[in-house]
């Protein structure tokens, strides 16, 4: 059996990777990957191929050989003509595929996380510095487990009375009202949500809701209500305890610095 040329092998690897990302990962293993991310990965794969073929002169010449033959070798006239027709056709098809797309608005350009203020407030009352404020009931977890349990239960009650419509009964952001919202409600089961923030940050997000988000990084378009108008301070702290208790993720704390 004739061995494939290096050029053909590289081409197969490149196309194979695209098929894998676009169809295998994007449909079979997981949900579709955004085109920009696929392009980023394909760029890296191209770099990997270029590195592999160009490290040694001999390999580089071997890679270029079919290209050179196609372009200048008299015996490769047919191939040359096929390529001469195929290249513009591929470009044409690509251009058409871009223009033929339905109008698709861009995604929300919001930041990953809003920038919190330096001070944490509840209505007009200053609770303290964002960095320093702790959940006043957190210490019950060690000191008074029964009292802690009671606060978690209260948090559960608050959650299922107010939050679960959007954030879902499994806290995964899949509530009944979730689907029309853009951005979608936070998924607390995601390991990147609760563990990344202090409880004071979560308090701020709950108490101020969408309208209390900072001017920087707009538009936020968050449908989150201003919960400090409807919940007491203690209820907000309790619901934070419930979120971490239910998901098993601990909010961020800080050890000692250098």
């Amino acid at each position, binding site marked *: 059996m004739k061995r494939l040329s290096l050029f053909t092998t590289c081409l197969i690897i490149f196309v194979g990777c695209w098929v894998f990302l676009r169809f295998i990962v994007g449909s079979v293993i997981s949900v579709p990957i955004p085109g920009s991310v696929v392009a980023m990965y394909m760029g890296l794969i191209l*770099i990997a191929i270029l*590195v592999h073929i*160009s490290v040694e002169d001999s390999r580089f010449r071997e890679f270029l050989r079919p290209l050179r033959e196609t372009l200048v070798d008299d015996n490769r006239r047919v191939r040359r003509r096929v390529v001469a027709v195929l290249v513009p056709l591929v470009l044409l098809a690509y251009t058409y595929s871009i223009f033929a797309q339905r109008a698709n608005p861009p995604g929300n350009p919001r*930041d990953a996380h809003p920038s919190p203020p330096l001070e944490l407030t509840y209505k007009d009352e200053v609770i303290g510095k964002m960095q320093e404020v702790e959940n006043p009931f957190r210490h019950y977890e060690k000191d008074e487990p029964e009292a802690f349990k009671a606060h978690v239960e209260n948090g559960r009650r608050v959650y299922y009375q107010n939050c679960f419509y959007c954030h879902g009964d499994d806290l995964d952001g899949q509530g009944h009202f979730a689907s029309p919202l853009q951005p979608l409600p936070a998924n607390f089961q995601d*390991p990147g949500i609760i563990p990344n923030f202090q409880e004071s940050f979560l308090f701020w997000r709950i108490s101020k809701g969408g309208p209390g988000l900072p001017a920087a990084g707009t538009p936020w378009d968050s449908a989150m209500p201003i919960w400090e108008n409807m919940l007491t301070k203690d209820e907000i702290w309790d619901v934070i305890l419930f979120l971490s208790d239910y998901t098993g993720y601990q909010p961020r704390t*800080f050890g000692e610095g250098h």
Partner: protein
Amino acid sequence: MRQHQQTRLDIRGVACRFKKPLLLLVPLILLILLQTLAPAVAQDMSEAEYRPFPKIGSRNAAWIAAQLHLLFGSFILGVPMFAVIIEFIGWKTKDARYDRMAQEFIKLCMGAFSTTALLGGVLVFILIWCYPKVMSKLSGIFGPTMIFYVVLFFGETFTLYLYSYGWDKMQGRHKGWHLFLGVLLNVFGTAIMFVSNSWLTYQTSPGTQYGKLSDTTRQSWLESKLAQNPGMTQTEAMEGITDATVIPLHNETTGEFLATVWEAVNNFTWMPVNIHRLIGNIAFGGSIVAAYAAFRFLVAKTKEDRAHYDWMGYTGNFIALCGLIPLPFAGYWLGREIYMFNNTMGINMMGSLFSWLFIIQAVMIGVLFIGANYYLWSGMGRIDGAQIYARYRPYMIAIIVICVAIWMTPRTLSKISTSSELSAMGGANHPHLGLFGLMTAKNTAVNIIILTTFLSFLFYRRSGKSPTASWKKVGNIAISSIFFFSAVSIVVIGIVGFTVPTDLRVNVLTPYQVLIALVVMVAVTIIDIFMYRKATMSGTIKWGEMTDRSQYVLILLAITFTSLMGLMGYARSGLREAWHIFGVMQDTSPDAFTPLLSEAVNIVAIIMVIFFALVGFIFWLGLWGEKKKQQAVPTEMEEAD
């Protein structure tokens, strides 16, 4: 006639030699002016908080001058560190090539030194003119350190001149003293950097931990807190304060400075920035030297020159790699300290306003690692007997590229997705790829990249050599096992990192990953050194027989390092947002906004163009001088005949 000519030449030479110290005096004079004018400027505060810089604006002017000063500064601080080590190696091995190369490095440094000083002067001038109130505030706090800076600057200048001009004269029995001068030069240079770092880190983190404060400062802070909160008792004021609590060094209402100069110097991010820059300088210096060597290699006319500059390029890249490998660890420490100083600042940095810069950073560091490995693999092409390692290369490329892909995958994809893609993903985070956006995945990827790069270097080191140790088989099995099990451990720790509290991950798991990578590098190096101690040479290194492509990679690495420093410098400085001194002195100038990423990238690009134009000019001057010298020798000889 000839004597007259000689005198003229001497005068010209003396004049040239004086030009550089004269340039060095520029920042010195400006600093003295600053000290003298500070009270006057302070009085003038109400009249002129800011003065506009024509056309480009004050912030852009200060930004460009500061970044250029930093780039040149980084070069002239980094190069002497490895120049003195190379000189030492040359002295001990009695190999004159090392000595020649080290001297060549210092020659490059000399050219850049006066430019650094000049840019420092320009920066001080811009700051005094455009930001008198800020400078007044800073000089009021850091006055004594500015005087110390001037003293250090004198020390560094004269040591550099002695070190450079005394090179040829201090050979032989004076070599030890010459090396001592080199060490002294590095001490001065590092101290200068530490002093100036204290000013800028203070602007970002004007606070330190309670445990590090003097009793007087603690008392002043307590009194100011009680004054701000009438009715508060001392016990209430001290509630929740531990030795680790970050205490502001200012009265939070009046902005009055409450601490000592040392406490301001030893602020929260000072030491992490010092270490990060120290290592960064080595990597940057190495990369610029390698780029210079690459350029000389590409234009070289003789085989000898190609061989010399190939070797110089290899050494520069090796030094850059030595700096690059620990750099992510130092950067991680700095990031952790920023989070610890102020969580809001940390979130802004990694999850909000500046988070996309870190994606660009990942791309660039990816380029650096891929480029550095590419150069090593290319270099193996000029060593007989290195081909046996070529079969591992595709796997190593795949590992590095997969890790870079993980590192550069953003956590939140909303900015780069269409609305239909967001709906298909069920939110801004991809349910699976989104995990790559978390730090535990990225740290794992970085450590694996570092280990793979180390493996490349190990293969390079082994190329053309055959070990004669009787235990070579056992040794190879041990090394393979160390690599395998450490990689598995790093990945397992990374996976566990998704499930544990952040505090545990940041303070325990990630340091363990780093520790594993470091232990592997040390252990494998020791085993390898012993295994190859009496190795027979099965092939020689054919210096000068590198591909031109590999030399362009060296130039690309230098460009990437420069742009990376520019962009991440913007992140470090921009983190303060609308504050000159975070939480203490607000920026009320027309520039008090965070520029768009695109605007920042444009400014950094302009800085890079200016930097490389200046560096190119300095290198060209060196080349020109060299050519003139070469032409002068035969002419003088002819005259003598």
